């Protein structure tokens, strides 16, 4: 009995998160193929079996395989939204770009990757706030979208931001913007966090967000620290 798309997506998330952003795009692509081609139909996937197969196909130094198995075992116990987004979307966009081969296509892919990185960073911060259990995440979203720096940005950034603020679903916040736009937004977020919780917590939450975003394949070409 074939596994459903949701289960496939979860497996992909676990594997790529387990690779911890250290693998090259080629290694990530190989892992995707291995998962879909060889384990897509396997209902009860044994992850150490997967690791053995990956070891055959990848250079172990490149994929940092010695740590991957341990990471996978840890991640399997977590919920889907804690693990991180499905990397296949970025890969598909990258493939589309390669097919067209145009500069515009590459730029579009980069923008989308950047949006993934930015969105993951922001979602991580909001998730941290939500775990405080004091409605501070809602307060943050309200204040953030009213912030003058954010308002000054182009409507294409503020629009998705406002929509998402009304209903902050994981993986749903992907506004289009440049590095400078996102940097201003992250800074406005940092100022709010400093004001509300102090600089130590602000630094911690921002760093958590960066680490979450660094697990994305898109982070290879769009390092999240450029948004700081």
């Amino acid at each position, binding site marked *: 009995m074939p596994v459903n798309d949701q289960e496939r997506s979860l497996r992909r998330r676990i594997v790529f998160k387990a690779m911890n952003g250290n693998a090259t795009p080629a290694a990530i692509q190989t892992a995707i193929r291995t998962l879909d081609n060889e384990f897509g139909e396997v209902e009860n996937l044994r992850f150490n079996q997967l690791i053995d197969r990956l070891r055959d196909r990848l250079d172990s130094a490149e994929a940092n395989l010695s740590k991957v198995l341990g990471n996978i075992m840890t991640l399997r116990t977590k919920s889907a939204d804690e693990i991180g987004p499905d990397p296949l979307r970025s890969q598909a966009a990258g493939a589309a770009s390669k097919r067209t081969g145009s500069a515009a296509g590459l730029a579009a892919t980069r923008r989308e990757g950047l949006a993934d990185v930015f969105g993951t960073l922001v979602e991580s911060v909001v998730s941290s706030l939500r775990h405080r259990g004091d409605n501070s995440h809602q307060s943050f979203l309200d204040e953030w979208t009213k912030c003058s720096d954010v308002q000054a940005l182009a409507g294409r950034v503020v629009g998705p931001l406002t929509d998402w603020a009304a209903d902050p679903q994981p993986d749903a916040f992907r506004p289009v913007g440049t590095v400078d736009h996102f940097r201003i937004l992250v*800074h406005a977020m*940092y*100022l709010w*966090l*400093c*004001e*509300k*919780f*102090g*600089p*130590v917590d*602000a*630094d911690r939450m*921002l760093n958590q967000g960066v680490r979450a975003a660094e697990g994305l394949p898109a982070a290879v070409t769009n*390092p999240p*620290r*450029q948004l*700081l």
Partner: protein
Amino acid sequence: MSPETLQSNLDTMWIVVAAALVFFMQAGFAMLESGMVRSKNSINVIMKNYTDMCFGAVVFWLAGYGLMFGVNKSGWFGTDSFAMRFAENSEFAILFFQMMFAATAATIVSGALAERIRFVPYLFAAMIITGFIYPVYGSWVWNENGWLAQRGFVDFAGSTVVHSIGGWCALAGVMVLGPRLGKYGSDGEVREIGGHNLPLVAFGGLILWLGWFGFNGGSTLEANSSIGKICLNTHLAGAAGVVGFVLTRVILGGKLLMTQTVNGGLAGLVGITAGCSTMDPMMAVVVGLIAGCVCVVAMTLTEPMQIDDAVGAIAVHGICGVWGTLAAGIFYEGDMFNMARIETQVIGVSAAFLWAFPTAYLTFKTISVIVDLRCSSMDEQRGLDYSEHHEVGYPEFQAQLHQ
């Protein structure tokens, strides 16, 4: 070799060794201050310590020494010995020793202003402190014709001349700069901003303690038998400072933080600096104990006033310097509780504040009008290591910073 020549050589050797110990205090300050700030600002703190000493040395040689120890007919400042090139060898040794003291005064300021002052404007301020504010007050006290020296003001190794002057300059800088982002909540809540490397703070404190034996012992400016008592008093007061700090914290019910305990020891050391040669060891212990308590009270009082001193320099150096200088008059060996002497001490510490604070405030304010004294909030978010120096202190954690 005649006995006089031998004594002169020994004096010079002792002054130079003591100066080297005071120089080593810069390492202590660098470790203590960089450990007390967040990792993203550690290189900036080290750079400030490193460079204020170097720029300060040149400025002190050019102008400071002349203002401080040149011929002082008015009682207010010296008028010769600028950029000294020709002198007795022994005077070169004294210049070398005093140069280290001047660097210490500026370094005290750097810690208080950590994590938000821009580097180049800080260097300007440090040069003005080392080349003007510190030596002018020093000339009042340590130049034999200085007006405070003429009144019999006692400050043997610089509780006021070095430490309080540094503390008041730090206070001025802190007031002009304002607190770090988020240090105080909108409801007045005080947020603790912990250091990133507390073992470094402890090692820095111990290095400072070691350097203090040169700081106080070398202030005899000669190799004589009083050095033993001076160093003993120095050590006892430092130890009593920690004891006083711990007891006060236990009695008041606060937490016993290691960083503040180190500051308690420094408070005792600052306290004894003025009277280490004119007190018996029992009084040194009393001075240290009280300095430890004063340090706790001062730190407790300055926090709610939104005076964001990143390392506690104002309490430790400014306020404990005042206490130490008053104590040098109160517990003067063989003449304790002499009201005339205490009055002179009060005049001296007041003069230090009235000179250093407004002058430093004006200096920082003027610099802030001409250029940006404070870094932008974006730079504060990124950390001054990157924004001011394009280097990071801990590449394992920050290697990809701001690509």
